[in-house]
């Protein structure tokens, strides 16, 4: 990939970079709220914002099929599953500081994640500095993705379907109440 010097003026001159900045802002604020919000439901809704921003990022890159899959699977199914999990486990719905560890642990966690970000960021700046993505002329065609998935990647695809079946059965087996224990220990639910 050619190393072309890119000035800040050039960067801000491209309209897709402004779109990127808006998306990045939504994503960072959303994910920050996910990990800090004192309200469980607000955290899940912030996750919706962060995932919607990642779908918008995929659209910006021309990866349409992945973008709509994120919307369908993550925002449509996974978030609803999380809301069900919150309702079932009766996580405290009001403002509750006990959702996070005490300040001492949180400071350590911030230190670890900050160091991780600096490490990854330094490595990225070292490795990919100045490299550009050519503007995708057309979006990746869904037909091409399907072609590739069912020819080159058909075995992983089948393995994933087995994994999903195993997860389905495992989820039912784990979450199901044993019939005898319901009768015997009715008080202990």
């Amino acid at each position: 990939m050619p190393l072309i010097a890119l000035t800040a003026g050039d960067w801000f001159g491209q309209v897709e970079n402004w779109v990127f900045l808006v998306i990045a802002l939504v994503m960072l604020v959303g994910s920050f709220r996910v990990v800090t919000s004192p309200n469980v439901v607000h955290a899940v809704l912030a996750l919706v914002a962060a995932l919607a921003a990642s779908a918008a990022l995929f659209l910006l890159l021309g990866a349409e099929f992945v973008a709509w899959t994120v919307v369908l699977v993550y925002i449509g199914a996974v978030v609803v599953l999380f809301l069900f999990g919150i309702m079932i486990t009766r996580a405290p719905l009001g403002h509750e500081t006990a959702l996070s560890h005490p300040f001492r642990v949180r400071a350590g966690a911030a230190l670890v994640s900050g160091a991780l970000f600096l490490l990854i960021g330094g490595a990225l700046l070292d490795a990919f500095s100045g490299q550009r993505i050519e503007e995708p002329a057309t979006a990746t065609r869904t037909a091409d993705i399907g072609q590739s998935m069912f020819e080159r990647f058909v075995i992983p695809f089948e393995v994933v379907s087995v994994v999903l079946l195993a997860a389905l059965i495992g989820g039912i087996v784990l979450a199901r109440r044993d019939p005898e224990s319901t009768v015997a220990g009715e008080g202990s639910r």
Partner: protein
Amino acid sequence: MLINQFLLLGAALFALGVYGVLSRRNAVLVLLSVELMLAAVNINLVVFDIALGDTLAGGQIFALFVIAIAAAEVGIGLAIVLLIYRNRHSANVDELDLMKL
């Protein structure tokens, strides 16, 4: 567009996910933070796929696989959290010390 702007965003998202996993006490919120980390991985896969111009679209297909595995992981994870809640009447990860000496 630079490659690094996307990669740094993914790194920030991953770091926030790590912070959430370490700092959250409620098991459901820990799973939520894991989802953030998986989303960061998806961004990296798609960005490299577009940047390299893969004719097989391998990065995008792996992102789809990650999404499918994440859905399975959430299902199993929430079932386990539900089971723990039913047995211990709490979904806080610091109260699950049954295997501690």
